[in-house]
């Protein structure tokens, strides 16, 4: 959860987290009541915080006459919980890959009408389809990101040292007390499996207990299980090496040149945030128009420029400045990408098992 970053409002994954789903839900209900009275056309867009271009929504209204009612959520879990008892009125939501599957399984998502989204053609070939959503029946890609290691160069044993293995975070006392890792059970267990040479998916039970032992052993050396605010711990000098998302570290490097980024040699997790229409969306047609607009090259470039996450949109990418396109933190090299994997949704039972393992690690 957000900690220092919350106050700075730096990243999508942090802003509202601590205020919790309840507060967000209440404010949203109020907002909706307000707009349903208006006769003009509206799209209720529920997105991560600080995850849109500064003029995107106004430009959309200018182009189409449809206004956007913009609300935020702070985590996939919060989004899922909000939709559990039925759609409270959202038209477009932005779950990550694994949750696209989870929500589709739970029949929370509406099938997209691809004929209403011609800008799908702007997507790079590798994003035209997705393993977590075959045929892109429910989702269009919005941004994508990878997990890696952010570190403080001056605190490494030598100026040329690069912590290019998960070992330094998960299985070594070299940086004892100076480590922070993601406090999400699934991310932590999947990346531990990756470190052990296994895929992030389909981890067998025997390996899970090995991972549990390893993390219990490693726990005294880890300072905090952070809630996606690792870059703040790194920036404030609290830790020297963190497990974090690339966009967060890319932003930190702009603030502090002593920070660097590496994708461990064992490979890592890739995530994709997707545009979806939940079932019972009040304005499905306008929602399609809105998704189509977000996939427009110009609009996509405006968003990517602001939020500094990788865009799956080739038309948008072409419009971006050279230093963005060549930023290997935002856009890992093909060799690095070859070692990335999407974490698949493997059922509620597995999610509960991972959660219990994490509870045991924390309690040990």
């Amino acid at each position, binding site marked *: 959860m957000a*900690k220092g970053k919350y*106050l700075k409002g730096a990243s999508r994954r942090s802003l509202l987290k601590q*205020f919790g789903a309840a507060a967000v839900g209440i404010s949203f209900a109020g907002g909706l009541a307000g707009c349903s009275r208006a006769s003009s056309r509206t799209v209720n867009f529920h997105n991560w915080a600080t995850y849109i271009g500064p003029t995107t929504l106004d430009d959309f209204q200018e182009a189409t006459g449809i206004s956007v009612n913009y609300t935020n959520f702070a*985590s996939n879990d919060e989004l899922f919980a909000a939709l559990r008892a039925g759609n409270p009125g959202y038209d477009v939501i932005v779950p990550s890959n694994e949750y696209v599957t989870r929500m589709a399984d739970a029949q929370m998502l509406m099938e997209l009408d691809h004929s209403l989204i011609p800008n799908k053609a702007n997507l790079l070939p590798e994003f035209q389809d997705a393993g977590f959503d075959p045929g892109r029946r429910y989702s269009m890609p919005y941004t994508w990101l990878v997990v890696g290691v952010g570190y403080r160069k001056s605190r490494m044993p030598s100026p040329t040292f690069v912590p290019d293995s998960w070992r330094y975070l998960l299985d070594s006392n070299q940086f004892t007390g100076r480590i922070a890792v993601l406090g999400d059970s*699934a991310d932590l267990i999947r990346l531990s499996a990756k470190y052990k040479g296994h895929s992030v998916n389909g981890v067998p039970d025997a390996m899970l207990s090995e991972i549990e032992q390893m993390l219990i052993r490693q726990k*005294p050396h880890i300072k905090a299980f952070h809630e996606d605010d690792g870059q703040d711990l790194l920036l404030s000098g609290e830790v020297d090496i963190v497990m974090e998302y690339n966009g967060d570290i890319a932003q930190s490097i702009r603030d502090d040149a002593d920070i660097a980024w590496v994708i461990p040699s064992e490979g890592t997790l890739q995530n994709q945030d997707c545009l979806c229409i939940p079932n019972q969306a009040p304005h499905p047609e306008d929602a399609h128009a809105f998704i189509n607009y977000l996939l427009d090259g110009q609009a996509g470039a405006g968003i990517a420029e602001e939020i500094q996450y990788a865009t799956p949109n080739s038309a948008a990418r072409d419009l971006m400045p050279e230093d963005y396109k060549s930023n290997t933190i935002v856009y890992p090299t093909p060799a690095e990408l070859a070692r990335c994997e999407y974490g698949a949704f493997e059922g509620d039972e597995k999610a509960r098992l991972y959660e219990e393992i994490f*509870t045991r690690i924390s309690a040990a």
Partner: protein
Amino acid sequence: MEQSWKQAKAAFAAIAVPPVAWLVLFFLVPLAVIWAYTFGENVGPTTIDFTGTFANYARALEPLYLDIFGKSLIIAGLTTLLCLIVGFPVALAIAFAGPKLKSWLLLAIMLPFWTNLLIRTFALIAVLREQGYVNFALEWLWNNASGFMTLIGLQPLGDYEPLTLLYNNTAVVVGLVYVHLPFMVLPLYSALDRMDRSLMEASLDLGAGHMRTIWSVVVPLAAPGIASGILITFIPALGAYLTPDLLGGTDSQMIANVIERQFKRANDWPFGAALSFLLMYLTFIAIAAQAFIQRKAERRG
């Protein structure tokens, strides 16, 4: 003349119905739903069957979760004890301050409530972290001491190593004490303020020292205030999740953190509900114990 409510039923109903309706609709009904979940079973990603199973409670009573309950009880108990030790002299000072100073002091106690808990916790992070104000102050003292030692011809102290004050259980207790102190001070103050001062004067006149007077006269008279202070500090501290989340380290997990994750990542509402209700049963026991102690004290008095 005082009227019994039976003689003014309409007026009584007019006053009582809205809050009772509110309480039933927005507190008891949702609570009953959650209680029903504790006997439910997940049959799909979003569907729960109310099968009357006790499996959720059985799982909540496994050693893993009992240990976390135990740990939460210890942390909440320690927090309450520290709040009492710090809060009692503060409440005493406020109760005996002049009327003008008293209102200012009470305002100072309440002031933190004007800020969101989250913001206050972030402020505490800014104070306690390695690049925080406590460490800045200590570093300044250290460097001055070091300079002084060189001045008088001794070896300087060397570089200052910042203290690690955050991300451990101590930080969690410090944070909880900071947040819950007003809950302790206010009931203590109201008990001490109502106390009959002549009893203290009598105690002092009859030769008891100040400490003796506090222990033998003030504390027993303030006992109901102490008991309610302990209760309303202990209960929220037991259910704290934000403070251990933000200030805690890798082994600072409290039961509320586990409950939160059941409703989120694990998507296991029945089990989360069972853990919550176990916490609530504990709370009821604490309240019953407090009522029992109070009644016993009243009977003796």
